[in-house]
């Protein structure tokens, strides 16, 4: 018996040693990778336009031939297409969910020069989809991080970092210095800016977008096809535009669209499929037909940008034109004067003094399920005006004129909710919302409360 148990203990120890050895090895590799990153980082330089033109070559080096061999032996690609790719430059605007896969595949495939535009920094909430960045690069510029990943993947690719916000003052010279532009951005204003700059500069624009489980892909301003304005002459109303941070996005979805964008850029650079009519490809992860390609109109003769008599001849103010900012960050709303609202500290005091009240959480149920404050009632804002919702609030108040406090994720949706309940006259007590919502609650009051 005794022999047997000591034998087990020894086995257990040996297993632990093996685990620790494996962990040690993994950490050593990580250190080595970080050292390599550091040495490469010095080589990644930011560049201001205009760039010196990409130096064209007549043949590939032996190390390039060895690297791209699997593409070189493709009958439909071959050495000529590879040379075309080597002699072309692509600008990817956005190193986020779309840019992540697009930039890596373009860099790996052998594009001669790859420009990357982004002014954001890496955050852990990006990493589920922006797999070109990593945990160690939190806070680093996304444009730098993406260029670094390309250099680690393929040192033959000449990467250029444009760590800036693209706007009408700087876009044209940057776009003019590339052959192909990829729109991997996340907001309407930049999409119109890129369209107009590409029409003015005569560059094909490979445009992709993704949200929730859906993606879209179109090439604009290419071989007689439409520009973005031919399809969408006026920007959508701001309230119909949803960003990934509010609507959610499954990480792999922009990854798929980004891959398609890389593919289309490669096809343009190597003159594949030059006979295809203009199309839009729709991707829908939970449809029985995941991909659908539809035939699009040609360039519109009356388009104010790319038509026969364009009225826009230089870049305009796109933030003003679209009525929305050039980022995908959700702005803070101020519908209700601050003095009529409750701060996080104010609500903390109410909890500490056990003041009777009703806490109403107006987030969508899917968000409420992630985390919520104790004894809060969940009615999503879009349902709040329904008679049964008002009934539910009244029932919880039980004819007592207690105050109602309303909370949401950021303190935006809670403001119209205050107005709705005030109009319904459900209590003579206060109806207030909490400034900054649960996000600020985590920052200011309870760091252990989850933030998403």
């Amino acid at each position, binding site marked *: 018996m005794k022999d047997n148990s000591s034998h087990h203990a020894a086995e257990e120890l040996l297993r632990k040693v093996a685990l620790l050895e494996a962990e040690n090895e993994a950490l050593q590799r990580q250190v080595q990778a970080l050292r390599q990153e550091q040495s490469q980082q010095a080589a990644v330089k930011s560049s201001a336009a205009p760039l010196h033109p990409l130096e064209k070559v007549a043949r590939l080096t032996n190390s390039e031939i060895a690297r791209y061999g699997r593409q070189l032996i493709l009958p439909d690609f071959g050495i000529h297409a590879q040379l075309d790719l080597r002699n072309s430059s692509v600008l990817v605007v*956005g190193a*986020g*969910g*779309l*840019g992540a896969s697009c930039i890596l595949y373009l860099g790996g495939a052998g594009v001669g020069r790859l420009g990357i535009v982004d002014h954001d920094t890496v955050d852990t909430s990006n990493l589920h989809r922006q797999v070109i960045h990593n945990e160690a690069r939190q806070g680093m510029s996304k444009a730098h991080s993406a260029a670094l990943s390309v250099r680690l993947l393929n040192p033959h690719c000449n990467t250029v970092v444009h760590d800036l916000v693209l706007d009408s003052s700087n876009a044209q010279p940057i776009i003019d210095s590339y052959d192909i532009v990829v729109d*991997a*951005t*996340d*907001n*309407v204003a930049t*999409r119109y800016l890129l369209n107009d700059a590409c029409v003015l500069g005569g560059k094909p624009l490979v445009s*992709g*977008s*993704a*949200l*929730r489980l*859906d*993606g*879209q892909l179109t090439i604009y301003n290419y071989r007689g096809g439409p520009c973005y304005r031919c*399809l*969408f*002459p*006026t*920007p*959508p*109303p701001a*309230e*119909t*535009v*949803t*960003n*990934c941070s509010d*609507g959610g*996005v499954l990480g792999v979805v*922009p990854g798929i669209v980004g891959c398609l964008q890389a593919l289309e850029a490669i096809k343009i650079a190597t003159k594949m499929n030059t006979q295809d009519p203009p199309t*839009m490809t*729709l991707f*829908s992860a939970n*449809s029985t037909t995941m991909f659908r390609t*539809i*035939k*699009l*109109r040609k360039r*519109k003769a009356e388009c104010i940008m790319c038509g026969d008599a364009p009225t826009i001849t230089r870049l305009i103010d796109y933030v003003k034109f679209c009525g929305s900012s050039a980022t*995908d960050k959700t702005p803070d709303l101020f519908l209700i004067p601050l003095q009529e609202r409750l701060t996080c500290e104010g609500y903390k005091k109410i909890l500490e003094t056990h003041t009777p009240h009703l806490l109403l959480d107006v987030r969508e149920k899917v968000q409420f399920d992630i985390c919520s404050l104790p004894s809060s009632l969940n009615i999503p804002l*879009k349902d709040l005006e329904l008679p049964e919702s008002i009934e539910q609030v009244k029932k919880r108040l039980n004819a007592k004129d207690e105050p109602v406090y309303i909370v949401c994720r950021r303190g935006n949706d809670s403001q119209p909710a205050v107005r709705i309940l005030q109009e319904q006259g459900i209590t003579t007590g206060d109806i207030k919302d909490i400034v900054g919502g649960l996000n600020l609650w985590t920052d200011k009051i309870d760091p252990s409360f989850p933030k998403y």
Partner: protein
Amino acid sequence: MTMSESLAIELQFSGGMELLFDNKKTIHTKVPAHFRQGADSHAVTIRDLIGWMASHLLKERPELFIGPDGSVRSGILVLVNGADWELEGELEYELQDGDEIVFISTLHGG
């Protein structure tokens, strides 16, 4: 042809458009074959269909679907049997029995 005749139309929604229609990606429906305008009646067009959908199928917030001019609001692309509606005459296209009309909201996220 009688005025009560109707056409079988398949409506599809994509890019978040489905959120306005009870989260349904596909709706098979019957649309009146003719619409009245004053004393006259005409064969149903996409313009009629959009107005009909707004009053019969839309649960809330019609401004997220229909624009002030009776067309779809900006940012929505319409397909007629798999092709951009611009190729088919846009608002004036006359619906045929069995047509498939797709409404796509453009996405901007990345």
